């Protein structure tokens, strides 16, 4: 039965150590200035940490296809929410403003 799959203990401890190391990495990178890449670097590390938690601590790697689809759909919708909001706010003022004359 796939749903009673037991994740080996060494995977739990391995993920735990990886999460601690990545926390240190994100603090270390934050002290350096990469210009426009500061936030993307921070989000990439956070995304990697979140993926480890979702796949192993939350067992999604070993779950049914339907559960995996649900988990993916939730975060996909979040991306839609953020991308469509930001494509408005970050492009404001990029086009010239037309003044209508009567």
């Amino acid at each position, binding site marked *: 039965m796939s749903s009673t799959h037991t994740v080996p203990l060494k995977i739990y401890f391995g993920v735990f150590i990886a999460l601690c190391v990545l926390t240190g990495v994100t603090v270390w990178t*934050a002290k350096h200035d990469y210009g426009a890449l500061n936030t993307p670097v921070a989000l990439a590390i956070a995304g990697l940490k979140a993926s480890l*938690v979702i796949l192993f601590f939350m067992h999604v790697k070993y*779950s049914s296809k339907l559960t995996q689809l649900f988990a993916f759909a939730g975060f996909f919708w979040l991306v839609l929410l953020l991308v469509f909001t930001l494509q408005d706010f970050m492009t404001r003022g990029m086009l010239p403003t037309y003044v209508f004359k009567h």
Partner: protein
Amino acid sequence: MSDHAHSTVGLAHHFDDLEQQKESGTLGMWAFLITEVLFFGGLFGAYAVYRSSYPDAFMRASAQLDVNLGGINTIVLIVSSLTMALAVYAAQKGSKGGIIAGLVGTWVFGAAFLVVKYFEYKHKWEHHLIPGPNFLFPDAHGVGQHGTPEQLYFALYFAMTGMHAFHMIIGLVILVWMMKKARRGDFTVHNYALVENFGLYWHFVDIVWIFLFPLLYLIGAHSGTPGAPH
């Protein structure tokens, strides 16, 4: 079917077997977590919009936070996620003592997180960093100014970390209830869905913090501005 009777303990009548029951429970939990993702997603969206409007103010405001306390709390929360994962592991193995140990560990580290959070909030209260009429943010000369855009950052800081802490308080209450059930021997190798689904909730709360930590504590860390002017 008497030879299969042992595997139907805890089976609700509207499910075919325990596998289907467990699968439905996991799916229902994920449906709930999706609503939680989008709920916190709205807060992260508001953060993205206001930070893109006031990037420098957000960096200055972020530098007022204590990176060490935030970092320690990140590790504390990761440890509590590990102990929660170990509680689920113990439940799968049918180890009653293991479940209780995992739940107690999760509770202790969860409570430790909130204690650190309390001292952080207290510090902000004392330094006039609570949005409102008494909000004062130090300018270049260290003189407190009213109504600066840094107030937006702190409004989001308290909304996001406050909602996160609220989720943890609810989690601690549920953990106590689960400890009682575990002591009573309610969880068996065939019936531990509550432990597993609460684990999903707890790990989700951990994920929210994984994003809150860099976005709230670390965005001003490269600017060389030392922490709050105490």
